[in-house]
Structure formats: C-alpha cells, structure tokens
C-alpha cells in the first residue's frame, strides 16, 4: 500500500494577520507558516493505516517559502517513511489551485494507491486541495472523512455529517480522501526524534515545472467589519465573574 499525504504550509493564525499596503492580500513578509491543521490529521490517519495494514507513507508538499523541512521532519518522526518537497523560485501566496497542479504532477509519478490530504486549507479562496487533486488525477474523492480502513484494493471511509451522523463508503483504489479528523488525535513527536530526522533523513526534491502563478484577483482584503461587538467586561477575575453572574441573573437565568 503506497500512501501519499499531500500537505500545505499555511500562515499561522497564532499571530496577528497584517494586510499588505495595497490591501489586496496578506503582507507575506510578516507571516509565520505552519502545517495546515487538517493536514496534520491526514498525516496521523496515514500513520494509523500503515500500522493497521502495512505500506509506506510518503509526505509531499510545495515548499513555497523554503521552510518546509521542519514540517517534513516532524512527519517522518510521526511515522512517515519518505518525505518530498516541490521546489522552485516561488513567491507566496501560491494558491491551492496552483499547489494542486504541482502536487498532482508529483503524485502521478509516485503511483499511489491512496492519497490523503486535509479536508480544507483556510488560507486562500480555493479552500480545498483534495477535490482538485482528485479531478486532476482522475481518481474518486470522498471528503470530510474521520476514519479510513484499507483492505485489498478498496478503502472503507467514514464521512461525517452534522449532528454526529456518519456515512460509510467503499472506494476502489486509487482514490483521494479528504481528512477532517484522524480516527485518533494526532500523536506527539518528541523533539529529540525530530532532531534526529533533521540530521539523518533525506528529503527528496522535486523541481516544479512552473514557478510563477497569478494569485486570485482580490479587490480588497480586510478584517471583517462585524455587525456588532460584544460589550467587554473589564476588571479583575473576581469582578468579571460577579458581573457575568449579574448579567445572567438579570435575565432570570439563575
């Protein structure tokens, strides 16, 4: 079972996001990149499948800002067997649609049985790499998946609906699956193991066939103007607690 996990580096939401001078996108000079959180779930699901049914896991991503190594080393420390990065003279942002194109070319060469990726990435207008990959690779796609079990040349996947309802699908491989959450919370990779991978692991470099991409024609990007804002309660925790209880009591709810 040849499992490929397609990942994406995205701006960290832990920091304040700043818009560029033109007001048309983020100021990418001010952005820290992290692994998209759904891709972390996809890596975990791949590791779980490998443990349950064997196979090799290859993690691949587009190295837009030449800082993907740490993410790949972490994936290796969590159980991936191989790591690859698509390299080129990129300028962020390289949007999901373009990353999907680059990834599809690279993944085709890997002849995967199963491609996993995060169900969404929240950093550009294209939203989802998975369905785009499936369309480009001409493979079936099921997304919003919370469990994958492989047997022979089929995968049984659990897709999640609202309210705790799930649907089970049987998909003939090869297929692309969009992971909402792994069937177990992502494992922790000890720093020592990541360091060891950084020293010993080899990351395959795949030259991008195209390096220049036109970002979507955004007229305006800004922090959303909210229709309203909460009335903020200031003070020491005891005062805040008393005020909150006061508001709740006033409504007759205590």
């Amino acid at each position: 079972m040849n499992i490929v996990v397609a990942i994406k580096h995205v701006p960290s939401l832990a920091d304040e996001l700043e818009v560029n001078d033109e007001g048309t996108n983020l100021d990418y000079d001010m952005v820290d990149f992290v692994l998209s959180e759904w891709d972390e779930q996809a890596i975990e699901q791949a590791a779980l499948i490998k443990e349950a049914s064997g196979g090799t896991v290859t993690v691949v991503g587009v190295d837009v800002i030449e800082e993907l190594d740490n993410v790949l080393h972490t994936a290796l420390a969590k159980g991936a067997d191989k790591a690859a990065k698509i390299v080129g003279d990129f300028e962020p942002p390289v949007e999901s649609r373009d990353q999907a194109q680059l990834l599809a070319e690279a993944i085709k060469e890997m002849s995967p049985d199963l491609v996993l990726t995060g169900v969404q990435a929240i950093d550009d207008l294209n939203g989802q790499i998975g369905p785009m990959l499936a369309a480009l690779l001409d493979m079936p796609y099921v997304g919003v998946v919370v469990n994958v079990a492989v047997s022979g040349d089929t995968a049984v996947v659990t897709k999640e609906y609202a309210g705790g309802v799930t649907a089970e699908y049987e998909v003939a491989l090869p297929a692309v699956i969009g992971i909402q959450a792994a069937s177990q919370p992502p494992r922790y990779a000890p720093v020592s193991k990541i360091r060891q991978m950084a020293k010993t692991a080899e990351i395959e470099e795949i030259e991008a066939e195209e390096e220049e991409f036109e970002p979507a024609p955004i007229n305006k990007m800004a922090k959303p103007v909210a229709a309203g804002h909460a009335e903020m309660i200031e003070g020491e925790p005891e005062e805040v607690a008393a005020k909150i209880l006061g508001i709740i009591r006033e409504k007759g709810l205590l």
Partner: protein
Amino acid sequence: MSNDVLVITEHFDGRVADISYEMVGQAKELAGALGGQAIAVMLGSGMADQANTFASDATIYVDDAALEQFNPEAYGRVLAALVAEKSPRLTMIGSTAVGMDLGAWLATKTGQAFVAFVSDIAAEEGNLVVTSNLFAGKMSAEVEPEGDGVVTAVLAGAFPAEAGQGSTAAAQIAPPVSLDGLKTKFKQLHRPEGGDVDITAVDKLVAIGRGIGSEDNVELAEELAEAMGAVVAASRPITDAGWLPKTRQVGKSGLTVKPKLYLMLGISGAPEHLEGMKDGELIIAINTDPDAPIFDVAHYGATSDLFDVAEAMLEELE
C-alpha cells in the same frame, strides 16, 4: 456562457437542507440583476415533492436510484454534465459536508474559477463580486472571479432562507450521463447512539474550546455548569480529543443550538463553531485573545483568564 445561476441543493433524510433555500433566494436576486435564470438542481430518488419547494425560475430534478444517498462520484458526474450543458455564469453549492466534496472538483473538471468560504455574492454593473471569509473568519476578501463562470461554496446562514422557498414545479429528468461503473459505493448511515443529554433541548450551556487546555480542566467546566444548572457543550477540538462525547459538539459538524444562555470558555469562534450557536439568546465569551472573532458575535465578552473567572464564578455560586 449563459447569465444563469445554478444552485446545487441538498437534502438529508427526505428533508431539504435550509442552505438550499438560502442559496436559491440569493440566486433569484443575482439572476435578475444579470439577466438570467435562477435554476435549482436537486439530485435524489423519490424526492419529487421536495423538488417543488423552491422559489427558483426553474428547477431540474434528477431522479435515479444511484442518487438516493449522497455519492460524491455519482453526484459529480451528473453535475459536471449539467454545468457543461447550462454553462451558468455562477454555480452555488453549500460549504457543507456535501458541497465540500463537489465544489472544488466541479470547478476543476469544468475549468472554472472556484471560491470557497463565501459569505456574500453581489452583482455590480454586470460583474459578480464574491466575498470569502478566509483564515477562519479573521480576514474577508472581495474578489471578481475571472474566466467563464465561477463555482462558489456558500457558508450556511449567509442569506435568508425565506426568499428561496416557493412552489416552482420541477422538471424531472433521468441522469444525463451513465452512472455505471462507479468506484465509490455508499454502504450505510450511522446515527449517534441515544442516551446522552440533548444539548439542543437545554436552556443553559457552558461551552468549552481549545483554551481549556487539558482534559483535567474539563472538570472545572462541569462543576461550573452544575452550579448554574447548565450542561457542558464543546467545540470540535474537545470532542475530537475525546474529552467529551460527540453528542456535546456544537457547530457545523455538530449540533445547532439556540439556548437562553451560552457561556463560552476558551472558544475563539471559528466560522464552523459560529454556525451552530450564533442564534443563542445570551452569549457570553471568555477568551484571552481580544481579536477573537467570537467577540463579534457574543453579547458580552471578557479577555480574562478563563480559569480564574470560572473559579470565581463557582465560588460565588457556592
């Protein structure tokens, strides 16, 4: 390319999902401004009556046994054929468990632009202006998509549902493409086991999110909830971690609640969570990040340490 607006509706358990009406209502307005038709599309089996409930200019109902349950491959084939035939200016699909399997795929297959996380679509002087909520709602981007037609994944609650409800008679057709040889097979639905408290039916909820930090701290929320006569609910990271059962999850992939009190501890307010609780009557949020989107939705907010406040509340209640 036509000036039509195609709306991909969806249904579950024989009931049309609200988002379908929300999109049809807006599609009517946009099609009017663009000089085209708002065309609702429903795929299913035995859904002919429900297909007649839209206020669209026209409705196409594709009936086939293979479409009874959602199947991304079967639905994708039919929709790609319909989009190729109608060549709409705009295709609207829900940013839902169904739409997220189809929208980006359809756009790629048909060579159209795609815009996800859509909170608004306007027609200005013949141009479409689409607003997308990026970075978990922390940024809003306005785009005029290029090319021949665009597929948009629309967030639930973006438009009012009433405007999309009507009685246009649907034209029932057979699938325009063969649905033989599908690689994806629907097997079965699993429904959550009963037994746990129904959080949609209680008046007061204490909701916890990532900010609660560790499983040990869930107990503090439980104690506070008990002292207030409330029940503990959660955002996705908490149920994913297994700290609370799925039956307590509020949001897009969880339950939609409208309690009299929704007290939030350590929830930043990702769009997926807001979708499930924004209609709460009294929303109070405690979160250390003053820029957290939840403060745009909550009625009252505090940026204090949630543990200090929860403990102080507990002390006063006891």
